[in-house]
Structure formats: structure tokens, C-alpha cells
């Protein structure tokens, strides 16, 4: 009853709309990243987001406007380090990630006065999301989901076998750039949902959940999206009901979905083998 009442609140409605769109986007991109063993890029870019938010606050501009270009440039930097400097992806992510967080700490230290604002970005608060941010999140999410739909087979082929994809005429370099730029934009959007500290969980957990049950690539993408939506909706209601931090509860719900999927997957395989 309390939950139905909650639906009447504008902030809950806004949180649900923004959360559902952003989480679907995270889940879809997350599957490509997890399968390419590139999932920690979300964590790395989240750290860069911390630095860029600090710079945005320092320059007195809306942090999202500073974050979008800076995080996109950083993601392309990670890709370039991996491809050109013969550095493994995890090390490249580590370099850019630590650079981002260092810049954030230095800028925060120089400015001194905006530590509380920065704290809100670190842990996020989807219940405080504004109407403008909802519109921006939904519009960007729809645009990015459409981009994934356009490049679906290209992304699938590159994820499965990059060399073969090149011999199929797919411009793998461009596809990789599209993937990391989409990831950058997604990380910046997801910052409001769960906060910088937990953003990579929205990319990784639904994808890993779907891999426990998915049979077929499209089916796995669908399950990932469904798991992400369930986690966000449950997370918002549970956090509202028990007065808990929403971002952290969404992540806990995602983990709960993973546990359920793991058990269900094991049971299905046992039944299949019998």
C-alpha cells in the first residue's frame, strides 16, 4: 500500500523513469564490455568522471557538461593506449583512472569549498533527480540505445572475433571507438543513478546475470535489460520503504538478481543434463 502511494510522488516517478532508461542502456552496453573482458572500463571512467565533476564545479559550470567531453576523451585515450602503446586494457584503464581521481583530489583541494557537492556525485541520489535531468537522461538513453541497435551486428561480430569482423568488412577501429564513447556517455548518465563509486556495477551485474540464463545473443541482451530494470525498480521502492541510500540498494538488488539467476541457471543445466 505504501509502495502504491509512493508512485504518486513526483520524485519517485522521475527516479523510476530515469533509472529504467539508464539501467537498460547500462545492461546492453555492459554485455559487450563483459564479453570483451573490458568491463572495468566503467570503473575507470567513473573515476575520470570524479575528476571532471571536480573541474566542472571548479570552473563553475554544470558538472555534466564538463564530464561528457572529458570522459569521452579519456575513454578514447584508454583505447589508444591499448592499441598503440601495447599496454594491456586493465593497465590502460588503471593509468587513466588514477589520473582522473588524482586530478579530482587536487582540484577539490585547491578549491576547498565544494567537497559536499562532490560527495553527492560520489554516491549519487536518483531521488533528487530534476525534471531537466530526467529529460536529458531519457533522450540520451534513447539515442544511445538506437545507436546500439544500428551497430548491433557490428558490435556482436567484433565482440565474438575481432579479426574475423575485419575480414567481414567491419571497421573494427570505428566500432571500438563507438563502444567506448557510448560507454563514456552511459557512465556520466549513470552517475546520478548510483553515484560514481557504484557506476560500474550497473554495467557488470546485469550482464553477468544474463550470462547465467541467456541462450542466444539477443535473448541474453533482453535478460540483461530485464534484470537491470528489476534491480532499479526494486531498489527505488526498497530504499524508499526502509529509508536507505537508493544507489547502494539498487546495487544490492542487482546482486540479488545475479544470485537468483545463478541458482536458476544451475537448476536448468541439471534438468537439461538429466
Amino acid at each position, binding site marked *: 500500500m505504501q509502495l502504491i502511494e509512493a508512485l504518486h510522488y513526483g520524485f519517485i516517478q522521475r527516479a523510476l523513469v530515469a533509472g529504467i532508461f539508464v539501467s537498460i542502456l547500462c545492461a546492453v552496453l555492459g554485455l559487450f564490455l563483459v*564479453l570483451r573482458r573490458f568491463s572495468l572500463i566503467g570503473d575507470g571512467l567513473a573515476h575520470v568522471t570524479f575528476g571532471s565533476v571536480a573541474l566542472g564545479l571548479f570552473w563553475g559550470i554544470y558538472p555534466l557538461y564538463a564530464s561528457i567531453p572529458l570522459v569521452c576523451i579519456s575513454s578514447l585515450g584508454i583505447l589508444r593506449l591499448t592499441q598503440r602503446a601495447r599496454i594491456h586494457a586493465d593497465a590502460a584503464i588503471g593509468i587513466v583512472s588514477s589520473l582522473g581521481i588524482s586530478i579530482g583530489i587536487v582540484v577539490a583541494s585547491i578549491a576547498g569549498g565544494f567537497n559536499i557537492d562532490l560527495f553527492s556525485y560520489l554516491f549519487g541520489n536518483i531521488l533528487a533527480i530534476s525534471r531537466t535531468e530526467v529529460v536529458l537522461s531519457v533522450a540520451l538513453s534513447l539515442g544511445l540505445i538506437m545507436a546500439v*541497435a*544500428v*551497430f*548491433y*551486428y*557490428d558490435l*556482436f*561480430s567484433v*565482440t*565474438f*572475433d*575481432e*579479426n*574475423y*569482423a*575485419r*575480414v*567481414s*568488412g*567491419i571497421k573494427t577501429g570505428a566500432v571500438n571507438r563507438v563502444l567506448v564513447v557510448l560507454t563514456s556517455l552511459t557512465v556520466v548518465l549513470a552517475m546520478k543513478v548510483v553515484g560514481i563509486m557504484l557506476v560500474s556495477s550497473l554495467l557488470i551485474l546485469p550482464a553477468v546475470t*544474463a*550470462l547465467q540464463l*541467456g*541462450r*542466444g*545473443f*539477443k*535473448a*541474453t541482451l533482453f535478460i540483461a535489460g530485464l534484470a537491470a530494470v528489476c534491480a532499479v525498480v526494486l531498489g527505488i521502492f526498497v530504499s524508499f520503504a526502509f529509508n536507505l541510500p537508493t544507489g547502494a540498494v539498487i546495487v544490492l538488488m542487482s546482486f540479488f538478481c545475479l544470485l537468483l539467476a545463478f541458482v536458476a541457471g544451475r537448476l536448468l543445466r541439471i534438468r537439461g543434463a538429466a
Partner: protein
Amino acid sequence: MPISVVSLRQLCFTYQSTTVLSDISLDIHAGDYLAVVGPNGSGKTTLIKVLLGLLKPSGGSATLLGTPTQAFRDWHKIGYLPQNPPALSTRFPATVKEVVSLGLLSRKHIPRRIGKSDAAAVQKALEVMDIVPLKHTLIGELSGGQQQRVLVARALVAEPQMLVLDEPTAALDPEIRERFFNALAGLNKEKGTAVVIVTHDIGGIGQYASRLLYLDKKVIFYGGFDDFCYSHDVTNYFGEFSQHIICHRHDRKERN
């Protein structure tokens, strides 16, 4: 004059100051069935990658169907089976049917779509490799040999003008291997598909291939089987026993 499918001229490839390929010049024509053999580390896979534009040569030139490989765009005319694709070692969620249909992407333009009109081509490739019952199985749940058959089906599905296969029979059992070689010979003879096959399957190549390239960083031997069987230079590199097997099978095939 048959159409030149591949033309290599003084091709060299160097990796971190190590010469992997040196002064390779050869032509492959439509209808050729070329076996590429040589010891481990002799540059066979590198040659294939340079030929397909996956690696840039350090010197010389490589053309595919008359176009420099780096500028080549008609990828639907080339079928490729790479050595050890990375995704197969993981629990990749794609079904056999989805993987085989990836072979049709070379015919499509962005936004690429695989539709119902492609189902017949996929079904035919599945039938050739005898994997129809596996089409809804996840690729990661298959044995190594079954995975190899799926990847060969993916190379065949677009009915290319040239097939480039890097150790295709490594994980196949004798029955499937025989069926695979027969299917390949059928494509080669009936449709004039050029076949370039990197292999250690010495027994198989004498029966099916029309030409042989023996590579050891440079060309040791390149020509037809008749020349190969009487080439004493090759024996030192190739081993008398292996050469004997190939020539014996080749003679038997000629008699038949």
C-alpha cells in the same frame, strides 16, 4: 588466362626487428587449391594475415582481386577461418545459427541486418558441415571439433570466391575431415572457388590440393604437385617420409 585472386610481390613482414616473411612473390588464381605448409613459426599465419590486410606488410605489395589489400572492400568475396578465435574459450552466449550468420555480414551495409531471406544460406552451410541439429546450441557448449565445424560453416555461408582457411582440420575427427575436404573440393571444382589452406594435415593435402607452398620465412617451394614430387631441394626441409606420403596420394588421385 584465369583471374588473379591474390598477387604478392617481394612481400616482407618484420615484427620488432625480427624478419617473419621475406621476399614472397606468388600469384593465386581462381580455381587454385593451394596448401600452405611449413614448420611452426615459419610465417604461415602471418602470410594469411598480410594477405587479408589484417597486418600491414613492411615491404612489397599484396593485392586481392586486383586491389591492394589495405584498400580492398569486397569482403563478401572472401571466406576466412582464423586460427583459434578468442571468444570460443569463454561461455559466449551466441547460438551456432547466430555465429554462422555472422558470415553474411560482409554482404551487408550499415545498418547491417540478418533477416529471414538469409535463412536458406545459413541452413545450407549448416547442412554442408553436418551441424543442423546443433543450430540452437550455444557455441561455448560444443566440443573443439564441433566449434571448428561451425566456424568453417561461417566461412562458407556467403559462398565466397576465395576461401582462406588457417588449420581448419586441426580438431576434426576423420569422418568429418573427409566430408569437409570433399565439400571444399566440390566448391573448388564446381564453382571455381580458390582455396588457400594452411595445414599440418599432410595426408589430406596430397589428395585434394592442386598446388603447394612450402614456407619457411621465405618461399622454399611453390608449384604443382608434379614438380614437388621430383624436387630434391624440398626433401631436406620437408622430410622424405612426408614428401613420400603426399606424392603417393597425389599419384593415386591422378590414377583415379
